[in-house]
């Protein structure tokens, strides 16, 4: 990725607004809409997702039922809500290994605060939002102050949070899961917001799907239409060059980590309000799934390239594969193998399509 802070590969297709920037080398070239489409980062994953969809539509009976697809979408949305901010963070050139357990932490804080203070559940959710954002800010602050790799910093946070989740839950509740808050004030409305099911044409769709699509839209707008989006691409592409031209690197990275924390808060509240109580030991390992979803969606591990829509397609691919295997009635012993093979194939297809696309532009 070059050190330019202008967007090249990330123009919205069909966007014909004349830019007020000085015309320079490649951007005055008239490119056809098809070529523009081919240069999108998420194109490969879309092809991969279509391939997987067709595959399971043939291999698994019942996969094409509306109810089954709703289950697949729900499974995808629970990954996708986190994959969006994680993708942004990866475009900004960093990792967050604490994202998986942060979801559980967020749900635990919300539940225990409401219960112990006998407060309206919205108060607990608010406190949880503040604390979760603070943890995200801590990640970003540690990273920018210590100059340690994000891998190390967030690995530390991940382990600390895992311990704190269990330790605090045992300390406060005396067991490994929180007490139910389903009978408290504010629960019904919070349940509606975070965990309700919308019935469309006799099929129940979980509200998380809406949250997911909303986050994808928001993140796409930030990336493609705002100055902050430019900064994210810049710090991920080349941090030093970005700093040299006046991009607030530290602020951007802390903001990105807080974005992940915000996603974790939404996921955490969903966990809490759909299940009434939270298991303290969960969430470990999910951080890798979020990263995988982002990478399948076209994010580069090295940063500076990717898209929010891609992360959504990556999450959809993951959801289709994990549930498709069940619908296809394959032996669950091989589940992880199939999952790995599918993901590898999808990503290979993804890179192949991208290479072909670059060759034709």
């Amino acid at each position, binding site marked *: 990725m070059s050190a330019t802070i202008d967007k090249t590969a990330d123009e919205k297709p069909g966007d014909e607004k004349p830019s007020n920037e000085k015309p320079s080398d490649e951007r005055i070239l008239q490119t056809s809409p098809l070529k523009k489409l081919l240069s999108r980062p998420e194109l490969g994953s879309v092809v991969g997702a279509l391939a997987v969809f067709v595959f399971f539509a043939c291999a698994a009976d019942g996969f094409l039922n509306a109810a089954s697809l709703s289950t697949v979408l729900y499974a995808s949305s629970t990954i996708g809500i986190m994959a969006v901010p994680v993708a942004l963070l990866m475009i900004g050139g960093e990792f967050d290994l604490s994202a998986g357990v942060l979801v559980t932490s967020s749900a635990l804080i919300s539940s225990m605060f409401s219960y112990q203070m006998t407060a309206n559940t919205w108060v607990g959710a608010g406190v949880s939002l503040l604390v979760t954002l603070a943890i995200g800010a801590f990640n970003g602050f540690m990273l920018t102050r210590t100059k340690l790799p994000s891998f190390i910093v967030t690995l530390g946070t991940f382990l600390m949070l895992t311990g704190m989740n269990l330790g605090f839950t045992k300390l406060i509740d005396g067991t490994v899961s929180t007490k139910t808050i389903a009978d408290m004030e504010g629960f019904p409305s919070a349940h509606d917001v975070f965990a309700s099911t919308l019935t469309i044409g006799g099929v129940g769709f979980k509200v998380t799907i809406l949250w997911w699509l909303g986050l994808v839209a928001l993140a796409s707008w930030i990336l493609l239409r705002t100055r902050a989006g430019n900064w994210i691409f810049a710090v991920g592409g080349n941090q030093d060059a970005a700093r040299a031209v006046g991009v607030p690197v530290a602020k951007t990275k802390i903001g990105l980590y807080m974005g992940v924390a915000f996603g974790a808060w939404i996921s955490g509240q969903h966990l809490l309000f759909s*299940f009434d109580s939270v298991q303290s030991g969960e969430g470990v390992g999910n951080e890798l799934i979020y990263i995988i979803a982002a990478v399948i969606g076209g994010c580069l591990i090295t940063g500076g390239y990717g898209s929010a829509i891609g992360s959504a397609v990556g999450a959809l691919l993951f959801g289709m594969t994990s549930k498709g295997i069940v619908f296809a009635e394959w032996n669950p012993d091989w589940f992880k193998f199939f999952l790995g093979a599918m993901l590898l194939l999808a990503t290979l297809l993804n890179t192949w399509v991208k290479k072909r696309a670059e060759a034709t532009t």
Partner: protein
Amino acid sequence: MARFRTWAVIALAGTLSLSLSACSSTGGKRAEDARKAAAAQGRPAVNTPRWTFAMITHSGDGDTFWDIVQNGAKQAAVKDNINFLYSHDDQAQQQAQLVDAAVDKKVDGVIVTLAKPDAMKAAVARAEKAGIPVITVNSGSAESKAFGALTHIGQDETVAGEAVGDELNKRGRKKALCVLHEQGNVGHEQRCDGVAKTFHGTLQKLYVNGTDMPDVQSAIEAKLQADNSLDAVVTLGAPYADTAVKAKNDAGSKAEIDTFDLNAQVAAELKNGTLGFAVDQQPYLQGYEAVDLLWAYKYNGDVLGGGKPVLTGPQIVTKDQAAALAAYTERGTR
């Protein structure tokens, strides 16, 4: 390249000669095949239609205990002409989604574990709304009825823990360690709390990462080294008993190792006195009965248990019974 070829030839010759000259006349695959051939020919014993039952558990990957449950369920499925589907995930949200997937498939019966009851509530309700009978197994005896399941088949974990506490008293133990290998499993907490309830001595808890055996061993070892007055270690799963034995030997401790659940290794170690006792909850029955009772419900509207859980344990197994169980643990049904 030439050197590589020489090595390849040597290696090939070596393996060939080894495999030809080193046949064991005891044990191994041949003995296992013979046993399998002698076992029942899998044919249905009924002429009911081929129903599909899905079992969804909270097991992690590659778990001995759930393997035995599956063996029971599969044998019952063969007998009852059932198409048996098994899936599992140790994260509550994923497990609930798997139940949803089974309901989407319009299966004829669902068997589910309620280790994380709150998380499973909506999914179980959805199954019942779709007219699919549900039987809960292994964990969730308290919630099963409220969720509208036909029956719960399993062991009351607190009662099992209390039985262990009594047995420890009988053996004159003073200070015991309870090793929990799955953080967040309510059933495990209940077991340790049950032990604490009836045990006259002091009980300490130790959390270990059950998916990482070396970690389990070093954690127990460190604990035994740090406190040499510990005279009993209770593990909550059969595979961990053997690890605890290794840890005890390395730490030079005198503690007696006792465990929940059985496997071949535990049966052998009970027999030679390495382990004190085991508490069995008969997982084979949990799988077998779940499928069989669903079949009976579909065929005849029968429900077992009269609204109370059907208990499959606890059964204390000591040196005296271990010999008889060896053959069963070998074939993976105890």
